[in-house]
Structure formats: C-alpha cells, structure tokens
C-alpha cells in the first residue's frame, strides 16, 4: 500500500482544484483508505487563489491542515507564489509550464521542481474543460494514492450522469486522465 501523502493543490478559482481534490478523496475512501480533504475557504475564496489540502493514509489522519506538503501542484502564477510556504526539502513541487515569469518565485528548497504542460495539452489537444482531470491524472501518477481504475470509477460516479447523455465525454475525460499520467511520466516525477 502507498505511504501517507499530504497534497496541496492550488490554482485560480474555476481551474477546478477543489473538484479534483473531491474526486481523489472520494476514490481513496471508496477503496477503504483514510482520506481527509479541506478547502481553504476564507473570504479570499472569491477571486483569490484556491487551495485544496488533501491527506490520504491507511490510518486515521491527524490535523486537518498541514504546514508542509509531500507534493504541491500549483496551476497559476499566484498559486506558485502562494504555495511556497507549504514546501520543504521533502516536497515535490509541480507547476504548469505555461506560467511565465515565475522562475524567481519557484521554491529553492524543494526536493524537486517539475513543469508539466497541462494547460497546453488541455487547450490544444483535448478540451479546456478537462484541464482539471489532466491534473487529477498527474496527481495520482505522482503520488500513487489511488490506481487508474479507482480514479476512473470515481470520475464515473461524479460525472456519470453527464456521460449518459454524451458518451464522448467519458472518452474525453478518461483520455485526459491518461494524458495527465503521461505528462508526469515524461517529466520523470514518479
């Protein structure tokens, strides 16, 4: 079984980090693991950086929020700057390669820093709507907190009613999930 993981997912409102966090923890719970998810929900929620704090383990989880993450995924300029505080020498830091001008803001103390072209793949190859599912694929590949099948089941559970109306959406979402996994493999993260 995979080890305990602390994951901080950060992006702009509308990038879907909270819904992805929600699907991942549901999937982990469904396979009998312990999961805890808490969004940041200050007044900044309106128009600020949205952060999802996710913990997945085999035993009951301690504090709901954590100071340092095992993996940080930052999806916007502001998210990169905002999440620096969750990074220490054990943290894997992943950001989107389309974010420009953040080189100086990337954490110097992270174990490793990777850029993945998720925005680009969503926009040019798949569909902007499945951007967050690409990110979900990236998270599960980088952390192994759940396997691909469990992830697919969780997506089906969440979006199945939409897939009924348009089966192509299922294909698109599953493709996005797999592309997310590939991006992480190509970056050499897992």
């Amino acid at each position, binding site marked *: 079984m995979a080890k305990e993981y602390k994951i901080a997912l950060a992006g702009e409102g509308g990038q879907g980090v909270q819904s992805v966090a929600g699907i991942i923890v549901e999937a982990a*719970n469904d396979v009998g693991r312990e*999961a805890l998810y808490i969004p*940041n929900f200050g007044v900044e929620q309106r128009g600020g950086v949205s952060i999802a704090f996710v913990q997945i383990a085999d035993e009951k989880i*301690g*504090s709901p*929020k*954590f100071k340092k993450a095992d993996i940080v995924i930052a999806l916007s300029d502001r998210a990169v700057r905002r999440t620096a505080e969750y990074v220490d020498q054990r943290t894997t830091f992943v950001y989107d390669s389309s974010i420009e001008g953040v080189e100086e803001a990337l954490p110097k103390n992270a174990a490793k820093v990777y850029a993945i072209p998720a925005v680009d793949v969503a926009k040019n190859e798949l569909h902007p709507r499945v951007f967050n599912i690409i990110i979900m694929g990236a998270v599960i590949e980088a952390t192994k907190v759940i396997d691909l099948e469990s992830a697919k089941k969780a997506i089906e559970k969440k979006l199945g009613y939409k897939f009924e109306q348009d089966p192509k959406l299922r294909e698109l979402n599953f493709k996005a999930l797999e592309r997310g996994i590939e991006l992480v493999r190509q970056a050499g993260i897992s």
Partner: protein
Amino acid sequence: MVDKPIKGEKRYFVTGNEVVAWAALAAGAEIMYGYPITPQNEVMHYWTRLAPKYNRKFLQTEDEISAGFATCGGVLSGARAFTATAGPGNTLMQESMSMAEMMKIPTVVVVQQRGGPSTATVIYSQQEVTMTCFGANGEGLRVVYSTGSHQELYDYTIKAFNTAWKYRIPTFVLGDGYQAKMRESLVMYDPEERGIKMVPTEKIVGKEGMPGVEREPSHLRNTYNTEDELYDVVEKLVRDFWQAAPEIVEHQEFDCQDAEIIVVAHGVVTRAAQAAVKELRAQGKKIGHFRPVTLRPFPREAMKKAIANAKELIVVESAEGQLDKIVKAEIYGCSKPITGYFKPGVGITAEEIVEFINKRG
C-alpha cells in the same frame, strides 16, 4: 409512516456540517431554527434539504438573537429543537442561552468556532470556549461537548439531545470550522439500533390539566423580585448542575500513566496531540496527553488522577489561553508548572507540538 433517516450502519464520506444535519435527524430532532453564518451554513443547508423528507421543520429567523429564543420556544412547546451558529452568532445567542440556564430549557446548540475577536475569520479557532462555557450573565450551567472528528460530531450531536432532556440543561456541541468544512469518513447509525434510547420530550408550557388544581404549575420564571428569592433559585440550579456533573463528564487519556510531560488539548487539536505523543514516544520520551471531552462540566477528578505522576503540563490550543484558564481553575492547588502553546485562530499540527517539546529539552 416516514422512513428512518439512517438504517443499519454505513460508512459515509462527507463534511462535518452534513454530519450534524444527519445526526440531528437520526436523533429525532423535530425542528431547527437558524440564521446563516459561516462556517456552519451547511448545517442549515442540509437540514432544509433533508427535513421535509422526514417530516421535520425549519424556521429561518431574522438574526441569532431570534434563533436562540425561537429554539427556547420550540423546546418549551415540547419539540426536540436545535440551532447551529458560530462566532458573532454565538455571541448573540448568549442571552437566550442564559434564559435556558435559568428556566432549565433543554436546548441544543451546535457551534462551529471561527476566528475572533469580532468578525475575524470565517475559518477556524478554539476561541469560543469561554463564551460557550460561561457566556452571558449566569453561572455557566451548561454542558459543552468538544468534538474532534466527524464520528464524534455524529455521536455527540445525538448525545446532546439526550443530555439536554435528561438533565434539563442547555447543551452545546462545540466543533470548529475545520470540522465543519472538511471531509473524512465516519459511520452513521440509527441510535436505537445501537441501544441508545432517545430521552422522550414533553411539553414544558401548555401541559394538560388545570395548573394548581390538576397538576403542579410549571412556574417558569426568569425574573425575580427579591435577592433572596433569586438566591434560592440559583442555589438550586447550581446544586442540580453539580449533582448531575459526575454522570456527564467525559475525557480521554493517552499514555498518561508514566508520562513526565502531559499535553492538555481539546477538540480538533487532540488529533495533533495524539499524533505528537505517538511520535515522541517513538523517540523514547515520556509524553502523555489528557483530553477533556466535556469542557463544562470539566472532568476535574479524572484529570487530577491522570496528571498525578507528571512533572509538567503543556496546554495546547488554538486560542490565547481559554482552555488554560479553565484547567488552572479546575486543578487549583496543583503545583506542577503549566506552559501554554497558544495559537489563537490558527490550526496546530503534530509536528509543531513535537518541535515545541523537543526544543524545551
């Protein structure tokens, strides 16, 4: 016949606010009165969605002063009634809860603490301890359960109705914004199937029969003309409260027996304290943790026993010494040094407790 909200036992993965709504349904609560405030909004939200399916009711009032008094009114009419609030809303409810103390009205209030003073944050704190235990003009004749997980939110919301109605004491479930908003797993159940009998409610006003002739008059008062008259009443309230207290107090201990340092923490911070004890024990250090579950009445005797062999206490809380003040009053006479680790309005992790203790050597 309307179906029971929960049948059998089932694992759920939901937010704490949703847990509270389900627990109140399972406990047979008939009506919720409320006014929106973050981070407890979804208690109302889920209750209003679920209540009609199970023939339960909801009334949104114009503010928390009204929500508190309407809850008193509902209870006086014999309904198993409750409300939920946070922060400034809790402040506004103190007047009605003081009336509940005086008139022995078994109200149930769920509090999801947010940052303070004033509006502060909508996020999290343990800064409503003093207010929830001792708020308003009165003597703190309340029961306050401080929960630390979704399972406890469920268990103690159900229990709160029974404690309130059994002892006729206003009862609070003290959660916080983290517990309100996070998702984690718990098992929901029908209390009856677990052998938990819900204490029956009854009309407190408008009882059957002619008062003074066919039955004793209810004699509900919160106003008195003379000091002596009031003194007799309060003296009886206080006596009743302390008589019930030994049956109500609850606590948990972790490795206290041979501990040199004991961490005292309540609510969600117990999770960090428990993990810190585990970690420090693994490092070979003699650390224990004492957790009051009831903050009022406080498990005084249990605590005195648990700390008997310790050399030092460290009170850890997300407030500037609110638990610390209670602890010091309750164990008066204990000469062991007590240090505070206070983070008002901020979450506390196991790592920082470990670091704090290790730095002290």
